[in-house]
């Protein structure tokens, strides 16, 4: 019983510490001088270098989703609505979630390990003693890069996922590209695209904050670096689902109205 209470207490304390860390990010996010060079470098590392992985995953998801759905859709005589269904499910949920979970693994662990290693080897202390604010240089730039790049990665995954779906439809059925994408886009409304894009910014914030928090506060030693990378992925993934749930609940109110 005591151990459960201790774990619960630790969870609350940890949540408070992550929230305080996020608060510090917001207080320094617009403070000058802004580290533009580091921000562009991080955008390249986080955005461009994750693009292939995200696109490949999105493409496979598009293929798999269509292949799995097709027999059922045929059974119900609704295979003609396949582009509509795939586009809505991909844009609203599958695309963002697959992308951010991949990114939580790749980017979250990468940031956690990099900052953790910098902490352990005293590089963060070295920055601090040279009169540079390491939080501003390392943390603010990385979180901004995550916030800015995640929506682009989600859009890329959505686009490539729809292409994967079209590939199955054109191979198994006889749908032209124009017809497929015409049906896919006509099914979408602004209420599908905007909430998905807005929540992608928040997903970026979560991945950035958690990755940076775990790395920046890493324990000493190589084990500390490993733990920082590992817990960054676990905590970010959990929080991403919570943010997604919240986003869906808010969007649901919009759909009901």
């Amino acid at each position, binding site marked *: 019983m005591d151990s459960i209470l201790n774990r619960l207490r630790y969870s609350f304390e940890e949540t408070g510490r992550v929230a305080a860390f996020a608060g510090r990010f917001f207080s320094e996010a617009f403070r000058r001088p802004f580290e533009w060079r580091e921000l562009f470098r991080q955008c390249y590392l986080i955005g461009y270098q994750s693009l292939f992985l995200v696109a490949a995953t999105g493409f496979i998801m598009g293929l798999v989703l269509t292949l799995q759905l097709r027999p059922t859709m045929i059974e119900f005589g609704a295979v003609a609505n396949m582009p509509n269904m795939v586009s809505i499910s991909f844009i609203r949920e599958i695309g963002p979630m697959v992308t951010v979970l991949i990114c939580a693994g790749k980017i979250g662990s990468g940031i956690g390990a990099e900052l953790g290693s910098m902490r352990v080897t005293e590089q963060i202390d070295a920055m601090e003693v*040279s009169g540079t604010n390491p939080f501003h240089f390392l943390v603010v730039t990385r979180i901004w890069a995550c916030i800015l790049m995640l929506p682009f990665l989600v859009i890329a995954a959505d686009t490539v996922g729809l292409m994967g779906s079209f590939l199955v439809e054109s191979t198994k059925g006889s749908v032209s590209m124009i017809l497929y994408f015409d049906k896919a886009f006509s099914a979408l409304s602004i209420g599908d695209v905007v909430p998905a894009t807005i929540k992608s910014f928040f997903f970026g914030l979560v991945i950035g904050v958690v990755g940076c928090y775990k790395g920046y506060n890493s324990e000493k030693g190589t084990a500390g670096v490993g733990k920082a990378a590992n817990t960054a992925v676990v905590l970010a993934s959990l929080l991403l689902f919570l943010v997604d749930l919240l986003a869906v609940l808010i969007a649901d109110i919009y759909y009901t109205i």
Partner: protein
Amino acid sequence: MKNSETIKSGLQPLIEIKGVKKKFGENEVLKGFDLQLFPKENVVILGKSGSGKTVLIKCLVGLVEPDEGAVHVLGQSIPDLNQHELDKIRKEVGFLFQGSALYDSMTLRENLQFPLRRHPERIKGENEEQAIRQILQSVGLEHAINLMPAELSGGMKRRAALARTLILRPQIILYDEPTTGLDPITANEIIGLMLKVQEQYDTASLIITHDMDFARVISNRIVILQDGINYTEGTYLELSKSQDPKVKAFFKDVQSRNQYG
């Protein structure tokens, strides 16, 4: 080398520590430590591993906050400074970390550019590239300017870290075990470099080590940190004549190494 009394006469200390205490959980590492460092002086803090030497010098740059006691650097009380004031003091205090702490995603040039671009006033209108090359030349690393830290040997890393420390032209340099983990030849090179740097840039140094042999060569004054306090202090010669068993233990270590080494 000038002795400590000559250096101290009529000068204000650059660093003054009084009654510093620091506890980590139940473990009280500093139990009221006192120290003064004067301009152009080389003071060695000698102590066993885990005796709190690194904690002490981290208190001087605000990386660790003492639980009790006064820490004054260049006349300013470090625990009472705000971030902006602390950053101003930090430019005057170079810190050479035990593991060098070079930024491993940057080349050697970028490692030196990093502090300089944030404090360009420190080179007073001098050309940035020229300042970097000049510092690298003084530590014998001009040829390695475009190398990444991972491509440097242990001794080169230490010299590169010293160059990065010097680029902001500090008045004081804090060395955290600068020769630990180096072979004797490379360690001697670093010692030579430290003496050269002090002469060239007129710095005062606070050096942490557990190596009495190194302390003999580099120090004007040795302070022994034992049981969390300033146990005793003096020149190498004075301490070598001490009959105190705790002081003698440090010399025995040197003798046994000379015997077996």
